[in-house]
């Protein structure tokens, strides 16, 4: 279909109203949209809506006990945000390993999540930090907002639970407790502009030698970025000695059923997950 109308709303309400009138292709940073259109993976709808001028979708701020990351915050915004660096360092780490400077300057957090790549770099740390997404719509005269745990947001490659009349307005992350530690590792063949072969985020509250309230998130090993519940159960609350670390690493390897593709075979991905989980936990145990 060809684009019949181009709109660039400046308020969230305007944007939500346009979405409620029927299909619109949403443009934010454009770094995923443009290649997807060129490759034929995505067809434009009749309306192209550029949301980059919507003020409510911008910025990163503390609101009570939550860090609110506007959907239009760029990856550079994540990387340079003091709040993120101080409270969510594993997210800073993921932002640092994201594509290139030129793409970080354009790509948005909301766009990265809505594209729902299994290998998306910002998803695993956000899953570990227990993020939720704020979805808005305007079904009638009033605006409706619902929040959904990020862990429930993704349903498949490129697919989410977001309805066609909804817009992802922000990601909200509870400020981690004192003593919370988190790590992110992305494995690729070169540091820049590489899609993750696998990525891992691990977080928990360190008390003595054990991690509590543990969360483990894995990228590029399943149709969606996912929480590894079985691995978490093995790790939860137990002293991080060499024996436990081996058990957790083996649990992570056995929990995933990745595919083989151009970047790696399924076997290699499982080996990577086992070895990198071991390395990360050893680092946490010593740190």
């Amino acid at each position, binding site marked *: 279909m060809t684009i019949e109308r181009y709109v*660039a709303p400046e308020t969230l309400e305007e944007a939500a109203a346009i979405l409620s009138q029927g299909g619109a292709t949403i443009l934010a940073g454009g770094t995923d949209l443009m290649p997807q259109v060129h490759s034929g993976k995505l067809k434009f709808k009749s309306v192209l809506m550029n949301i980059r001028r919507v003020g409510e979708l911008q910025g990163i701020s503390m609101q009570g006990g939550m860090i609110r990351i506007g959907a239009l915050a760029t990856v550079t915004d994540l990387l340079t945000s003091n709040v993120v660096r101080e409270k969510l360092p594993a997210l800073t780490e993921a932002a640092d390993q994201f594509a290139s400077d030129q793409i970080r300057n354009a790509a948005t957090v909301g766009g990265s999540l809505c594209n729902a790549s299994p290998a998306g770099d910002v998803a695993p740390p956000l899953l570990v930090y227990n993020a939720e997404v704020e979805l808005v719509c305007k079904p009638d005269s009033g605006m409706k907002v619902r929040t959904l745990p990020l862990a429930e947001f993704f349903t498949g490659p490129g697919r989410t639970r977001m309805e066609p009349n909804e817009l992802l307005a922000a990601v909200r992350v509870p400020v981690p407790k004192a003593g919370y530690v988190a790590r992110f590792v992305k494995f690729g063949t070169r540091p820049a502009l590489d899609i993750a072969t696998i990525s891992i985020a691990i977080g928990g509250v360190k008390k003595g030698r054990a991690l509590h309230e543990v969360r483990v998130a894995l990228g590029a090993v399943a149709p969606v970025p996912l929480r590894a519940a079985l691995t978490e159960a093995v790790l939860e609350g137990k002293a991080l000695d060499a024996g436990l670390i081996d058990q957790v690493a083996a649990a992570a390897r056995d929990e995933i059923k990745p595919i083989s593709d151009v970047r790696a075979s399924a076997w290699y991905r499982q080996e990577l997950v086992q070895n990198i989980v071991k390395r990360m936990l050893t680092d946490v145990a010593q740190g």
Partner: protein
Amino acid sequence: MSLKVDISFKLNGVARSATVPVETSALEMLRDALGFTGTKYGCGEGECGACTILVDGASLNSCLLFAVDCNGRDVVTIEGLDAEPKAEAVKKGFVDKWAVQCGFCTPGMVVQATHLLNQNPNATDAQIRRGIEGNLCRCTGYVKIVEAIAAARDAVPREA
């Protein structure tokens, strides 16, 4: 027939208006409609950096930027880069260090290097390498390119 949209923006310091097909990239607009061919088309998917421009002071891949999204913004291409504080030193660095081979990546490299030194005037050599990670040189002349950017860094008084 694709939908056309009227936009106005600042291009290299000068106010411009253009009527652009809505799905066109900023790169196509610059090169084909406005004749600013210094910005190169390399890969068309944000991998090579040959099309790097500055928009509102940030470096972007113009092949991934919708031309309509230039509306109201401040766009700088290699042709207008001289207004940027570090541009002259970067260009001199590329000449003095013989950092140009075939030259295709050079405009994008120079724009990105200028942005890098604007952001971080004291960038270490490692930070310079990271700063140009989104720019490919298929002559693989990276050593000279990094030397050129380092020379530009050292040529200007360091800021405290």
